[in-house]
């Protein structure tokens, strides 16, 4: 495969032709916040809007997960326009997230915490109103707990459940502010076709899906993934 060279944050890097800027950056040790994209997923969903970067010659910041690299491209992940958008997106997510890290089993491995640190955003945002949804927590599964209130709708669990495992218990339902990751008829997980494999829990970047008793395991599983992704 042909390689293309480009500059990201002043660093000259090489990546495969057709690659997206996001992966070119991550592969070269440059972190760009991201939640909703998976490398194996052919079409980026481009939903979280955290991965904005600036590209020389483009008037507006662009999402790194959808921008295809080009020979000689100059990318700036820290431009003021890109950071402004990424920060607003994160603050919007946090304003609708029960920021209760002290009691959350995912604290420490949560990607929201990590992104907030990266962007220099406080977890308790002041700028926006707190808009929570008060959805029911589902602890019916023997293996994990699902707290939809903490979900950021990144879709990783949905994707893993169907594409990797071919089950398709989880999916998106409802629309707009009410959009949720849920099961058929919004029923309890235990009454669905779930096989309790726990892959979704591993995929979840936040505290929305957590293992029931093996909280240690979940933490390390998260850490591992976060680390491999950033250091790769």
């Amino acid at each position, binding site marked *: 495969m042909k390689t293309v060279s480009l500059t990201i944050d002043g660093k000259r890097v090489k990546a495969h032709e057709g690659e997206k800027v996001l992966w070119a950056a991550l592969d070269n040790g440059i972190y760009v916040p991201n939640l909703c994209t998976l490398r194996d997923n052919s079409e980026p969903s481009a939903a979280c809007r955290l991965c904005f970067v600036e590209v020389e010659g483009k008037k507006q910041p662009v999402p790194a997960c959808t921008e295809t690299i080009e020979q000689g491209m100059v990318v700036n992940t820290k431009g003021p326009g890109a950071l402004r958008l990424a920060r607003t997106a994160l603050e919007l997510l946090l304003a609708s997230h029960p920021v209760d890290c002290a009691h959350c089993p995912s604290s420490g491995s949560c990607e929201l915490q990590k992104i907030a640190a990266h962007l220099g955003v406080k977890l308790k945002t002041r700028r926006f109103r707190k808009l929570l949804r008060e959805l029911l927590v589902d602890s019916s599964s023997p293996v994990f707990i699902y707290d939809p209130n903490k979900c950021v709708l990144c879709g990783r669990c949905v994707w893993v459940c169907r594409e990797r495992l071919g089950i398709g218990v989880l999916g998106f339902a409802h629309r707009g502010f009410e959009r949720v990751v849920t099961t*058929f008829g919004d029923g309890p997980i235990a009454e669905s076709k779930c096989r309790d494999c726990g892959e979704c829990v591993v995929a979840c970047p936040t505290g929305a899906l957590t293992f029931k008793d093996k909280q240690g395991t979940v933490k390390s599983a998260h850490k591992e993934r976060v680390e491999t992704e950033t250091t790769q």
Partner: protein
Amino acid sequence: MVMTEEQARVRQQTKRILNRFGRRRGNLVPILQKVQGEIGYLPREAMLEIAEFLDMPEIDVYGVVTFYNQFRLNPPGKHSVRVCLGTACHMKGGYITLDAWKRRLGIDRGQTSPDREFDLDTVACVGCCVMAPVTVVDDKPQGKVAPTKVDGILLSFKLEKERQGEESR
């Protein structure tokens, strides 16, 4: 799980409708429209049957059903009340009309009254802005529906029902 009689009937009815369609995912929305057209709403069993027919995850049928305004998960009332909240109607007090309906029926939009007589919802412009605010009652647009007219419409339904009650006696 044992199926109730009602569930079995819904399954049968859905199957019959499905016979008329090809097993293509692209047929999902037309199938849902047809099933809702015949049953009045989309019962759980119908959605399960459709998922099986199209060989797709059940949650995806549910995802589509809950995405679109047209589909309902609960049985409709005998009479449908659709308050227009198009721009012209809103600016001429459509929201006041909606409030009046809510108050009188004791339900919110998207709900059916406990006696299953009425279901209440909103629509966007039905194309008769001249008569704003408009309420579409049983598919017939009624113009200039002020709160007093809401009472009038309800009264006429009540009288109608009483008359029918007397006739059947």
